[in-house]
């Protein structure tokens, strides 16, 4: 593979990785505080996409308005799920919360199938993302360039929230010791709700960008990306936001490069994430940047 092709693949990998990273952040935020794998996260992403689709296709909103609206509504959905399904189980054994998360995930998927049908719908790709730039033999969709940029901006904004605001401080405190913080009188429920809101909004953003890339949506679209994003979060060190992004980038690059260098194994790309997961859990369970050891 020559330099141009490598550049092409690297850009693709970066794009895919940014998307995984955005989704992974949601997982890592929730896991850091609640020690819960929010199985429903990938499906929340799916709902976000459908909401954006409604906004753009049914109501004719401009793409950025549809995106904003969907992020807002998805944030709301995330909070609803937490308050309705996870909050009653805060003090229950962790397995119960995990099973419930699986139940919510399943519920969203099947509800989606019932409401929208199994056939994929075409998604929008606004003109600004639809340009094709060409340098030599490298062809790049403008979306592929915008995605990492948008992701970087979102990540920067998030880091500001986490490290410079009181909410962020509360989130960090909770991820260290939920019980003590609760005893200190801080309203943990609001912080947890905010965490879900942020994570879900990010998932919606990631989902919309994903849907623009491929460009179609279906009710089961969130399952595999969701799982892979979780793997990315573990890779980067669960509980660590920057780690989640790094994990996502690594996973995205690995997938793209696997397909590029070993095309005969292209069908196995979905399995790559899990092979990496098993490897990492066996050899460095704390992930690349993490310090928390699971259980």
């Amino acid at each position, binding site marked *: 593979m020559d330099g141009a092709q490598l550049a092409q693949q690297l850009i693709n990998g970066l794009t895919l990785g940014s998307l995984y990273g955005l989704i992974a952040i949601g997982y890592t935020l929730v896991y850091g505080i609640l020690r819960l794998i929010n199985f429903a996260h990938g499906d929340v992403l799916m709902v976000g996409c459908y909401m954006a689709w409604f906004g753009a296709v049914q109501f004719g909103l401009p793409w950025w308005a549809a995106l904003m609206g969907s992020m807002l509504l998805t944030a709301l959905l995330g909070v609803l799920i937490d308050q309705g*399904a996870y909050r009653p*189980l805060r003090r229950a054994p962790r397995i119960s919360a995990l099973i419930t998360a699986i*139940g919510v995930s399943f519920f969203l998927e*099947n509800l989606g*199938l*019932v409401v929208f049908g199994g056939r994929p719908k075409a998604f929008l790709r606004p003109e600004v993302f639809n340009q094709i730039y060409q340098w030599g033999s490298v062809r790049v969709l403008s979306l592929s360039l915008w995605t990492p940029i948008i992701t970087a901006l979102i990540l920067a904004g998030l880091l500001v929230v986490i490290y410079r605001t009181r909410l962020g401080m509360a989130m960090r405190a909770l991820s260290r010791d939920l019980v003590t913080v609760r005893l200190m009188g801080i309203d943990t429920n609001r912080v947890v709700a905010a965490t879900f809101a942020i994570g879900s909004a990010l998932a919606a953003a990631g989902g919309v960008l994903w849907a623009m890339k491929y460009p179609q949506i279906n009710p089961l679209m969130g399952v595999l990306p969701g799982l892979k994003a979780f793997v990315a979060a573990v890779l980067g060190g669960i509980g660590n936001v920057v780690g989640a992004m790094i994990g996502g980038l690594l996973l995205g690059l690995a997938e793209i490069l696997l397909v590029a260098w070993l095309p005969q194994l292209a069908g196995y790309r979905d*399995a790559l994430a899990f092979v990496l997961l*098993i490897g990492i859990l066996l050899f460095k369970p704390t992930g690349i940047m993490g310090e928390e050891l699971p*259980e």
Partner: protein
Amino acid sequence: MSRGWLTAGPLPAAHTTRRRDQRLTILACLAAAGGLWLLQAFASGYVVHMTCVAALFAVLAVSYNLINGVTGQFSLEPNAFVACGAYVTALLTLSPAEKAASFILEPIIWPLSMISIPLLPALLIAGLLTALMGFLMGFPVFRVRGDYLAIVTLGFGEVIRVVANNTQSITNGPLGLKGIPHLTDLWWSGGLLALTLFVIVRLVNSSYGRALKAVREDEVAAEAMGINAFWHKMLAFTTSAFFEGVAGGLLAHLITTISPSLFTFFLTFNLLIIIVVGGLGSNTGAFLAALLFTYGGEWLRVVEEPLNLFGLHIPGIPGMRMVIFSLILVAVMIFMRQGLLGRREFSWRWLLAFFDRRRA
């Protein structure tokens, strides 16, 4: 909460109780066998089919409950084991002609292209291979705990599915296998169910069962009392794998067509609902819940068919059943976490006492 079951009157001596229980169990088995014979001879194909499905799902539920409920290792792997069992059995029993006809993209590898053996040895081989797969999986899997165990086993399931989709010359990829002989009947399904119940109930009621429960309750304490937690988890896992594999084989010979899309996480999820609703840790619960879900699920199909109610035409909503199932799961977790039976098991003493109290 006392563990002693309620009885009217003094408890009989231990060995007479055991003999009475054995006789009652044998009687129940004979009655069940008689019932199966009646069904097989006189019931419609549909009822026979549903009962086979119910029996096989009961096998899956009781097996899955062994690792999840009894040993407390929350794993999400049944779809992988069922797939393995289904494919191995089918590949062994399909005639060479059928295989040649199915494998249109790439010919099936030798020696599979030539092998065609009867169902029983095929099931045994499938079960053992699945158990071996479980054994090998166990080494990486049981190095982690809790949520991570769940994700890793889910991951393995996905890997198996991807492999099945891609190994065109062994599994025929996404096209799957068709023309599998319809060999499963009530005797096979009932027989497997009887065997599974025998092995697993006996295991759980033995010292090994107590050890598994100890690992569930407190792994650190169990280790400190001389129980090698890793090997005991392996015991439960491979036993689970064996029965799930054999059940997969029988399922393949019931629905006669299999493909990787049949063995997705949805299957695991259905089994999860079943054992949670039945009561994580209870064999009886798993058994009853499996029957409930198979028959109840069929009955629930009514919400998916259009129906005419008082002159109103309510259109059917396909897929609504699964929505209801997932809501049931969430509701059970929030309001009745222990499920229907909790960790209680059926015992003859309970049943007799129940009737005793009724009469009094």
